[in-house]
């Protein structure tokens, strides 16, 4: 689904990740963990072709990233950005409809498939009652759900989610995770999630840890989410409660 070979990314003079080899198989859910500034966002941008990598190559669905047209890439891969600076003028529905941009066949607007995809996406994130509201009137969490709904309407094969749970209440955190799971399961899809919540990371199949100094580690979630590894990653004491996918981790104060 997604292959990165000897991918090196840097910001300024800092090399954040050196010669990363990453293979994301269809149906897999990956968590990307790391401290602030360890290169999680930069990695996602490099994988999405939004920022150039220093070296290495990325293939999505067997095709080199550079060989995609931007529009074609919008159907293969979708990214939830961590921040969006611009205000949007229209309604929430208008905003979610923009996710259909790479699919639009007509120059004169949306067709029934687009409308349907947007309606499904609005429903999946409990946004139907707000659909006709102006986007500017939405709260932070509602905007986050709107972005997720837009991505859901875009319906790409590979989902790159940068902190998808930020600003969400508990129920919608859970709903979002279930949505990603359902989107990926069975279908020829995969997802990479940048997370800070280790409980939710435990529900992913695999974990990629970025140490911010060029080193990285990747493996099955169960073997990666061990207190020693997490202490090493975050630089603080961590205690585990429970085991397996239900394990909880809290910092020791």
């Amino acid at each position, binding site marked *: 689904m997604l292959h990165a070979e000897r991918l090196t990314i840097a910001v300024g003079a800092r090399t954040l990740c050196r010669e990363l080899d990453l293979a994301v198989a269809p149906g897999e859910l990956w968590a990307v963990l790391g401290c602030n500034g360890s290169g999680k966002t930069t990695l996602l941008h490099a994988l999405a072709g939004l920022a150039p990598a220093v070296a290495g190559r990325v293939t999505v669905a067997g095709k080199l990233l550079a060989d995609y047209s*931007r529009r074609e890439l919008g159907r293969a891969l979708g990214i939830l950005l961590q921040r*969006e600076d*611009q205000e949007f003028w229209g309604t929430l529905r*208008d905003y979610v409809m923009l996710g259909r941009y790479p699919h639009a066949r007509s120059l004169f607007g949306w067709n029934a498939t687009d*409308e349907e995809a947007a309606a499904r996406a609005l429903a*999946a994130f409990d946004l139907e009652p707000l*659909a006709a509201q102006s986007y500017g009137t939405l709260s932070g969490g509602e905007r986050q759900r709107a972005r997720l709904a837009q991505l859901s309407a875009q319906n790409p094969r590979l989902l790159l989610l940068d902190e998808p749970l930020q600003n969400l209440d508990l129920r919608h955190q859970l709903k979002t995770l279930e*949505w990603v799971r359902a989107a990926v399961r069975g279908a020829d899809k995969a997802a990479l999630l940048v997370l800070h919540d280790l409980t939710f990371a435990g529900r992913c199949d695999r974990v990629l840890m970025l140490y911010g100094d060029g080193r990285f580690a990747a493996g099955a979630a169960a073997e990666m989410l061990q207190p020693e590894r997490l202490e090493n990653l975050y630089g603080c004491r961590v205690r585990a409660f429970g085991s397996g996918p239900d394990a909880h981790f809290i910092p020791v104060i």
Partner: protein
Amino acid sequence: MTSSASRAVPTPQPASLKGGRTGRGLLVILAAIAAASLFIALLFGTLPISVAQVFDSVFFPIPGVVQDVVWRLRLPRAFAAFACGGLLATAGVLLQVLLRNPLADPYILGVSGGAALGALGALLFGAGLAFTNLAALVGALSAIAIVFALSFRAGDWNLHRLLLTGVVLSAGFSALISLLLVLAPQGQLKGMLFWLMGDLSHAGASGLAWLLLALVLLVFTLCAGSLNALALGALKARALGVAVSGLQAALYFCAALATVAAVLLGGSIGFVGLMVPHALRLVGVNDHRWLLPASALAGGSFVVLADTFARTAWAPQQLPVGVFTALLGVPVLLFLLSRKP
């Protein structure tokens, strides 16, 4: 969760359709206003012509003074004014999307400064209309090329650099223009000032300007989806699948060409490119599918009316139209801004 995601959801009333309906209604109203403004431009002037006579001379032309005035004087000028206003308003919309700056107007990138420098230089040497226009064209195209060459880096077009390069170049041009005005002999000063303020009394044939207006409108109204996405920011637009670099270059060159065409017809007519798009956004037109044609219609009608006023208010003295676009536009925009949402 899964079941609710796959269930077909009834859509009571898609908001985008409602938006489309108001957009369509507004376009019809604006088209009617445009027709009315052109009619008014034919009606008023030094020679009093009645409504019936205007109708007759447009639809059943009989050779005579009235027909000459309508067909040879007022009609070409009204069409030139309309093309001018339409081009400026369209360029304003395009640049406001490109630069994502509400203060962007067609002159911000130095096009008008370059044109004015060329034109005034030609006027200083006593050049005729054709040569003045040629000099203005050369000046404008040089400005476009300089700004583009200084700000464009392949792969990453920094829009702040573009904006600043344009503003700095404009400042340089205006210093040179002041210098020309100081050095100019008394007799040529008035013509130069009229050129700077925007004046349609020497406007020539506007066929090419109309063609350009139609082309730019058609292309970008068809790409309205990309413009809507680009309004969310370049990164977000790329994430949605918009080929941003090509679109930005197209926006820059089309806006610049539209500005050149408008400036060659009527000098630096101010305020239209800034005011018209903002006024339309303030009344709720934001989707570029409607904003672009609505801006062209509103900008065109606005300049036609302002020009009719400019040539009749102090008749037989003709005033520069640029004065009236600002005088009429400022109160309208202030009213819209102060209105409660």
